């Protein structure tokens, strides 16, 4: 929900003083407060342990955001974005041992995770957009373009988001050890610049440790493509990598989504992802497959089927069945049946 100043002086005075203070040069102020709660129930069997667990869907966690923007005198605008994620039992952190307990930490509240996702300010005009602070680097999302309508429960990073801490049987290897979609450098503290030339948006960002990222996004009505390159330089493990993803939605509702990502750590691991989907009315269906090679103990793959239904504006329910496999001796498959709901406010 956005909040904008209205005509009367008294209203303006009260609204602006209560909501946001910006320099006098700002001609119009708009504030948006929004968020979501996204919960799921997951039945998991990893070949050694099985059980049902309540979790927060880490593919799109419970969060709230505060965004404000104002028009400046000179045709430019400036704003801010602050977003915090507040999860209880994130699905990515659920271990096999948690299946028989009260959740992460073994007690209610032990699995509370809080994180700041965005805390940045920006300015834009005919020159493009400059953003400073914590937020998406230029390559964030470069492996995750997905217009299938099922991405809340099925997309290129679902393996890690839904089962990242789950062990393949008693192999000692978790899904997170061997799966990645190599989606750039995610969110980080950076200075970012975006500029559009026709249907192509170019972006570059520089972050702590001299990490640099560059991307290009192409978007038309039924097709989106994103390509990204990054180099951590002095940050993290100093890795560099690249990713590309695309999603097409036909008039019939049939849709195709795919991505490929890699980086230059030992073994030159990579990930390939492919999904066929269908949208009809308020329903979206998808079947996907993906494989990560050479990242850890062995090559890992997964496939899943998913269904998402929009019940009414702001409410969607979903279900999926997912199988994770690892080609290591003694590593059992992980089966997960998931149902959940996401509600936006």
């Amino acid at each position, binding site marked *: *929900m956005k909040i*904008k100043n209205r005509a009367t002086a008294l209203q*303006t005075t009260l609204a602006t003083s209560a909501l946001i203070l910006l320099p006098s040069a700002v001609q119009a102020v708009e504030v948006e407060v929004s968020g979501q709660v996204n919960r799921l129930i997951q039945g998991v069997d990893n070949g050694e342990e099985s059980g049902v667990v309540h979790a927060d869907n880490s593919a799109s966690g419970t969060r709230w955001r505060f965004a404000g923007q104002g028009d400046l005198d000179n045709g430019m605008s400036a704003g801010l974005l602050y977003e915090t994620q507040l999860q209880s039992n994130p699905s990515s952190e659920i271990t096999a041992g948690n299946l028989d307990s009260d959740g992460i930490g073994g007690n209610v509240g032990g699995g509370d995770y809080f994180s700041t996702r965005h805390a940045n300010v920006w300015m834009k005009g005919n020159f493009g957009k400059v953003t400073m602070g914590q937020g998406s680097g230029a390559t964030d999302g470069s492996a995750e373009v997905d217009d299938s309508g099922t991405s809340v429960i099925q997309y290129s990073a679902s393996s890690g988001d839904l089962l990242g801490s789950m062990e393949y049987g008693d192999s000692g290897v978790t899904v997170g050890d061997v799966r990645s979609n190599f989606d750039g450098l995610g969110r980080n503290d950076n200075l970012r610049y975006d500029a559009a030339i026709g249907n192509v948006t170019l972006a570059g960002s520089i972050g702590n440790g001299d990490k640099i990222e560059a991307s290009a996004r192409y978007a038309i009505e039924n097709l989106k493509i994103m390509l990204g390159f990054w180099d951590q330089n002095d940050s993290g493990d100093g890795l560099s990598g690249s990713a590309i993803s695309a999603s097409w939605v036909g008039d019939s509702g049939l849709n195709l989504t795919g991505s490929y990502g890699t980086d*230059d750590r030992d073994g030159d691991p990579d990930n390939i992802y492919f999904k066929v989907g269908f949208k009809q009315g308020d329903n979206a269906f998808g079947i996907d497959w993906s494989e990560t090679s050479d990242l850890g103990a062995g090559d890992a793959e997964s496939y899943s089927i998913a269904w998402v239904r929009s019940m009414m504006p*702001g409410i969607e329910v979903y279900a999926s069945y997912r199988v994770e496999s690892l080609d290591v001796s003694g590593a059992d498959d992980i089966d997960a049946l998931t149902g959940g709901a996401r509600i936006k*406010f």
Partner: protein
Amino acid sequence: MPHRGRILSGLAPAALLLLITGCSGANLGDIDESVDSREQMPGPGIFADEDGETTLKWSSDSTEAEATVSDTNSAAVTASAATSAAATVSPEQAEFEQFKAWNELRTNGAESAEYQEFLQWLEYQKFKSSQ
């Protein structure tokens, strides 16, 4: 570092292209800011009505504030906060609240457009009460 070379070789022509385009006076600001539907569910939130609007009310002994929020697919919205003579507030109390707001504006911004607009608003209130 093959990737680093690719980044730099990709950035150089992109920077040159931006420089040329920028110098030509072209608009580079029409960037794609669409939000992924996984990151943020499309459409209005659950508090929106059929018109995509939400009304929030809160009140105290002497003041009632109201926010009208229209929440559309792109979350285009308006909202306001206002003091008004609520049904539970006596006319004298309401008038006192108006006086306080008027005095604040008079002190800090007598020449401002907001103050002038406020005076018009007071005249409008008088007009309404005379009907």
